């Protein structure tokens, strides 16, 4: 490409367009005036003005999770950048591709405690896959291209580019759109075929095979391969929170989420299997529990992950496979088909046992569930019944999230968006904004708690201003419910600082922003309320009043293992 003479800000925008960026979520500031001056004229990039930088990062994250494209957020120096931190850490933990652009004080002023100066580069180092502090305008084309390449290859993640004011303002001659150049970054994509063959053999010969599917399956676009492999092998599938949607919930082989707040039969299946294919998961403590002798004690463990650093990190495995999940699963399928390993023939006893547990255990713990939840479970089931398979659900963090994970039936990849690793309250609503922008034709619902929603609700203004009609369904229990639940179960019911007291009137709050608001006192009212919200065409808030003592049960107590779930004492089948 021919040399062109451009300002740093113009180069940034040209390179963003070249990377296919269509949307950026951001807030301007003093050192970003040059960049925003260029964005003012820009037609190809839609800039959405957020009301808090944390929401800009979450929105970019939500956008990335729904679309698979890299999400972009922009914040100014100092407080703008520090406000991004939570959102970037969140995206990093869940391997979501996000590029953050931050303004910085002029290079000559760096280190002088200048107005709105913070060392964004060092602050964000541990919470990004990589970050750049650009010192010369001429470096911008290479840095921006490399940033996008790093964010959306290998194990996906967050890349931050810190842009000093003079770097954006200076005019220089550059060649645009360079190719990526790295001395040491070569993402490991192709799995080792010896290993995939070994894995396929183990799974084919197992009597009780099980697949544990994590978010990596969704990120790799391998849901179809996963379903096919499960059916071919006759292997039931359990998922992590991030893996929800990797296989349709409701599929006969899908046991739903396992782990701390998982389904009793999913955890039991992990405990009983003799071969486990763990794919695109990092064996988080929320999935494995803490008594690791109860985690697949009899199983030959196969672990497929794109990140070699995840192998043997939390769990020692027998057959590690480093590489792209989609390629690894395809290789296994090819080998199984070629060697005519027939569908789950010897596994009928196992499949039968799983099916029995599935129906019988539910019956055994019915009372525990009923006792624990006044309406929360029914509310989620109602939402699940109304929304179509393409609709996107985001969640906040806490009880609302776990009720959603437990009872919301996710049918497709990239339709259940939740903060898994970092567990960020306030994530769901801005993530819903990003989701709706990525998929404007789909219904987007944030399943929220009153505590979480109050952390980021100011961005209702963003929704109204930019016509982003997401629906927020608030579990209104006037408590930080999950912490309250732990206090009830493990801290002698001393509810230390979990009561929210006089919570706001969320209907009035919605209306104050120009949104649609409706209150739901009984679960049976929710259906109409949701339909009203969708029909209003506006961003909407549904205030769902639930009991303060609602609990999400059964659960693994802290320090416990997969077979020691509270609330399963009466279950005869496990």
């Amino acid at each position, binding site marked *: 490409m021919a040399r062109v003479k451009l300002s740093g800000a113009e180069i940034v925008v040209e390179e963003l367009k070249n990377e296919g960026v269509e949307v950026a979520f951001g807030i301007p500031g003093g050192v970003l005036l040059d960049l925003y001056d260029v964005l003012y004229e820009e037609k190809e990039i839609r800039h959405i003005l957020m009301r808090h930088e944390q929401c800009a990062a979450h929105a970019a994250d939500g956008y990335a999770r729904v679309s698979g494209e890299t999400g972009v957020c922009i914040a100014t120096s100092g407080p703008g950048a520090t406000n991004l931190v939570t959102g970037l850490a969140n995206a990093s933990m869940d391997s979501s591709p996000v590029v953050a652009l931050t303004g910085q004080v002029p290079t000559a002023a760096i280190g002088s405690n200048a107005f709105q100066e913070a060392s964004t580069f060092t602050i964000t180092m541990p919470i990004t896959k990589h970050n750049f502090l650009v010192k010369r305008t001429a470096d911008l084309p290479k840095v921006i291209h490399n940033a996008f390449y*790093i964010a959306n290859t290998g194990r996906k993640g967050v890349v931050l580019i810190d842009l000093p004011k003079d770097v954006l303002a200076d005019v220089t001659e550059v060649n645009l759109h360079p190719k990526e150049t790295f001395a040491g970054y070569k993402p490991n994509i192709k799995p080792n075929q010896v290993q995939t063959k070994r894995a396929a053999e183990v799974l084919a010969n197992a009597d009780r095979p099980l697949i544990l599917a994590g978010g990596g399956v969704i990120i790799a676009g391998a849901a179809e391969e996963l379903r096919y492999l499960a059916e071919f092998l006759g292997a039931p599938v359990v998922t992590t929170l991030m893996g929800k949607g990797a296989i349709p919930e409701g599929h006969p082989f899908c046991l739903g989420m396992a782990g701390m707040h998982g389904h009793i039969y999913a955890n039991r299946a992990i405990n009983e299997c003799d071969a486990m294919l763990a794919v695109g998961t990092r064996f988080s403590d929320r999935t494995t529990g803490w008594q690791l002798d109860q985690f697949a004690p009899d199983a030959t463990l196969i672990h497929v992950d794109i990140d070699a650093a995840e192998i043997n990190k939390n769990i020692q495995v027998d057959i590690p496979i480093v590489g792209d999940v989609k390629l690894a699963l395809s290789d296994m399928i090819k080998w199984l088909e070629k060697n005519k390993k027939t569908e789950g023939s010897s596994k009928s006893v196992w499949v039968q046992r799983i099916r029995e547990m599935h129906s019988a255990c539910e019956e055994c713990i019915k009372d525990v569930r009923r006792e624990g939840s006044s309406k929360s479970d029914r509310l989620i089931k109602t939402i699940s019944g109304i929304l179509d398979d393409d609709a996107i659900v985001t969640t906040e963090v806490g009880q609302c999230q776990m009720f959603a994970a437990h009872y919301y039936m996710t049918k497709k990849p990239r339709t259940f968006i939740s903060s898994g690793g970092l567990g960020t309250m306030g994530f769901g609503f801005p993530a819903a904004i990003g989701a709706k922008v990525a998929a404007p034709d789909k219904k987007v619902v944030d399943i929220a708690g009153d505590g979480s929603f109050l952390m980021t609700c100011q961005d209702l203004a963003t929704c109204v201003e930019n016509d982003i009609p997401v629906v927020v369904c608030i579990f209104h229990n006037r408590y930080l419910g999950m912490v309250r639940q732990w206090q009830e179960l493990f801290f002698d019911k001393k509810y230390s600082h979990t009561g929210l007291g006089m919570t706001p009137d969320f209907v009035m709050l919605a209306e104050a922003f120009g949104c649609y608001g409706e209150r739901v006192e009984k679960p049976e009212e929710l259906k109409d309320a949701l339909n009203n919200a969708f029909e209003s065409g506006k961003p909407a808030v549904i205030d769902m009043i639930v009991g303060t003592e609602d609990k999400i049960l059964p659960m693994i107590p802290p320090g416990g293992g997969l077979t020691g779930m509270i609330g399963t004492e009466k279950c005869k089948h496990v």
Partner: protein
Amino acid sequence: MQTRIISLLVEDNPGVLTRMSGMFTMRGINITSLTVSPCEQEGLSRMTVALYGSESELEKVRKQLSNLIEVVKVVDLEERATIIRDLCLMKVHVKDSKSRSEVMQLAESYGAEIADATLDSVILELTEEPEKIDRFVELMKHFGVKQLFRTGITAIGRD
């Protein structure tokens, strides 16, 4: 628990050292020695890091280091097949001519150089394997070590 020496080839960018040390801090790993220097390839630096930790911790660190974008190569140095050197500068107190000649004799037997001398002290320089330097330092403590500087280790594989 064990000490392991890792040799890293890294891009010579500002912030690489912070990134590296931050990674160790995050994992709670203690660095016992770290040296950074230019190497045979322009634009790259070589880091020699000595770490103390359990086998599994060190394995995790090695993988995490490989994941850093600016790390080009990570080499685990096997102690037996590696030449390891540390440089020590030490100011030793000599109260009289007798201790002066004893210090100089011992220095000679260890292969240390006399870098400087004053009326009541000598500055010794020794480049050796770290364990040998340890022994030499212990010996000199008998006379009184006023100041001690060590560069930290650098290491090269024989193969």
